[in-house]
């Protein structure tokens, strides 16, 4: 069952450039992205900084302006909802951000932070205390910490508070924007295990935004790889990781350092030349053409379409996917 459907989403920001800001330009952060998240499923959106993955998540949450395209949640178009209907949708859709320090109000106690969404959505006051304690136990926090403030907690514990607050209203979808990148390595796997357990127990769906591919491989059912505001490859996690087709996905996978010194110099690594082009002035034709090791002449002028190379595995490449 489709829970969230993003169709041809565009998020463009007007910017002023030039020495005195005299030129008007358009930054195309997201430029035609279509994605679906099914119930009880994890869809990971991966890519490097500036590829538009966070902006996509923000647009779903209503935190970034939608220039064009449609976002539907359980079949209803978010842009057409009135305020009371939108409030209902917001209950079903929650978010966990990267940095648990700035996501929590330092002057509020843990109790107050976790209770906030419950209070806003009219949860009975008499049961509030019990519900917060239940949630804290659920995410692995000791309930005697409920009167402490975020400053007294470690990074991993704070992220547990943020997660408890996100699941307080029994949402259907949680958007996780780099939920473990700010945490110590020994804590990351604790939080990933917690997210996987919550998904099993509560039937959650995740839109999981991340740059760390080894984490994504572990947690996602499906993966969409973004580059310069476009999805360049999408498919089941196993397909994309074992049989990457787009040259960018290949390079991305081969640049992950392998934690095994005996593999050093043994594997063939594709080191991309150059940097990500500015999203203000993306290349004509294929967005990846400036760094692509297999680019051909027509790639400089023709923009490739996302097409299926095998069932449910889509690739945007003139050379490797049928156009």
């Amino acid at each position, binding site marked *: 069952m489709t829970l969230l459907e993003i169709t041809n989403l565009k998020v463009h920001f007007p910017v002023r450039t030039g020495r005195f800001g005299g030129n008007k330009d358009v930054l195309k952060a997201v430029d035609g992205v279509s994605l679906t998240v099914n119930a009880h499923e994890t869809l990971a959106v991966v890519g*490097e*900084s500036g590829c538009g993955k966070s902006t996509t998540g923000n647009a779903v949450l209503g935190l970034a302006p939608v220039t064009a395209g449609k976002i539907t949640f359980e079949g209803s178009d978010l842009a057409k909802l009135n305020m009371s209907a939108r409030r209902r949708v917001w209950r079903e859709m929650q978010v966990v951000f990267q940095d648990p320090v700035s996501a929590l109000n330092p002057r509020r106690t843990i109790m107050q932070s976790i209770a906030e969404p419950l209070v806003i959505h009219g949860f009975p006051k008499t049961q509030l205390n019990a519900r917060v304690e239940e949630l804290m136990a659920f995410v692995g926090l000791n309930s005697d910490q409920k009167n402490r403030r975020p400053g007294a907690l*470690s*990074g*991993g*514990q704070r992220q547990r508070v943020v997660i408890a607050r996100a699941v307080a209203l029994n949402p259907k979808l949680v958007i996780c924007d780099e939920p473990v990148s700010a945490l*110590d*390595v*020994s*804590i*990351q*796997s*604790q939080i*990933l*295990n917690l997210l*996987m357990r919550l998904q099993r127990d509560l039937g959650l769906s995740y839109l999981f935004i991340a*740059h760390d*591919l*080894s*984490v994504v*491989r*572990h*947690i*996602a*059912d499906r993966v969409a790889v973004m580059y310069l505001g476009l999805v360049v490859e999408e498919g089941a*996690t*196993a397909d994309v*990781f074992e049989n990457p087709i787009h040259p960018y996905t290949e*390079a*991305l996978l*081969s*640049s*992950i*350092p*392998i*934690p*095994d*010194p*005996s*593999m*050093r110099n043994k594997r063939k*690594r594709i*080191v*991309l030349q*150059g*940097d*990500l082009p500015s999203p203000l002035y993306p290349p004509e034709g294929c967005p990846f053409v400036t760094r692509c090791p297999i680019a051909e002449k027509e790639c400089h002028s023709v923009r490739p379409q996302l097409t299926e190379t095998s069932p449910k595995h889509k690739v945007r490449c003139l050379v490797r996917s049928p156009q």
Partner: protein
Amino acid sequence: MLLSVSDLAIKASSLSLVDGVCLDVSAGQIVALVGESGSGKSLTALSIMGLLGEGLIVSNGSIKFDGVDLVQATQQDLRSLRGDDLAMIFQEPVSSLNPLLSVGEQVAESLITHRQASPAQAFLEAVEMLRRVGIPQPERRAKQLPNELSGGMCQRVMIAAALISKPRLLIADEPTTALDVTIQAQILELMGELAEDFGTAILLITHDMGVVAELADLVCVMYGGRVVEQGPVQAIFAAPQHPYTRMLLQTIPRMDEPTKKELFAIKGNVPSPRDWPEGCRFRTRCDQVSEACLKKPELDGATHSVACFNANSA
């Protein structure tokens, strides 16, 4: 031995932050200092450079660089070493560069300061160095300000500035953490090449075991302000002796194991220096703890050393 740190202790007033660190780097070697936040790895590096912040003091031990004890050295001695024989690059390339000076001038600076080169000559050499670290069109780029360059390019500029005086030791504090993976791969390759070409020794500070496996010759694992294990990179990865090292390696999601399986996790939290337990500082999170762990374990062993009473029993 090019650098020899022995029994180093760093304190903030009465609070101990680094305790009994021993570390050797010989010429041309790449040594990785691995640890999580609060392990003392960055403080150890800063104390070598003589750049500890206000309120932090080296309370014990020595740091011998080419026979000279840097702990006893005057600010003037240190200043003549920094940027010449000793260089450092930081995690945040953009904020580590001066936003008002062209990148060429910043790369050239150490030649003017330490080698009495003329600004014009130094600038020419800086352009060559920028070319060497893989910056396209270095003549044009050298005249630009840092904000006109991407993060990956700024990190190349930092590396160029650090290496132009052919330092004997480069300290790299999380040099690729702020960069994207495809750029990280470029920078790691570059650092490996340059260390070989210039014979520069590197002290690499990182939390990423993947980066360690790609680049290091020797590994030194820190936890709670102390070294818990030290040895050649193959030995550390193939047969970790300390439970912390072993568990740290186990937590990495591997690319060859089944997905959606529960990941191995180390229980508990990384304690802050105020909450370090007596005796072995990892014992509150360890799965092999015994009575003996209430005492402080000493680092023991020759080439591969470990500070644990129950090492090897795994």
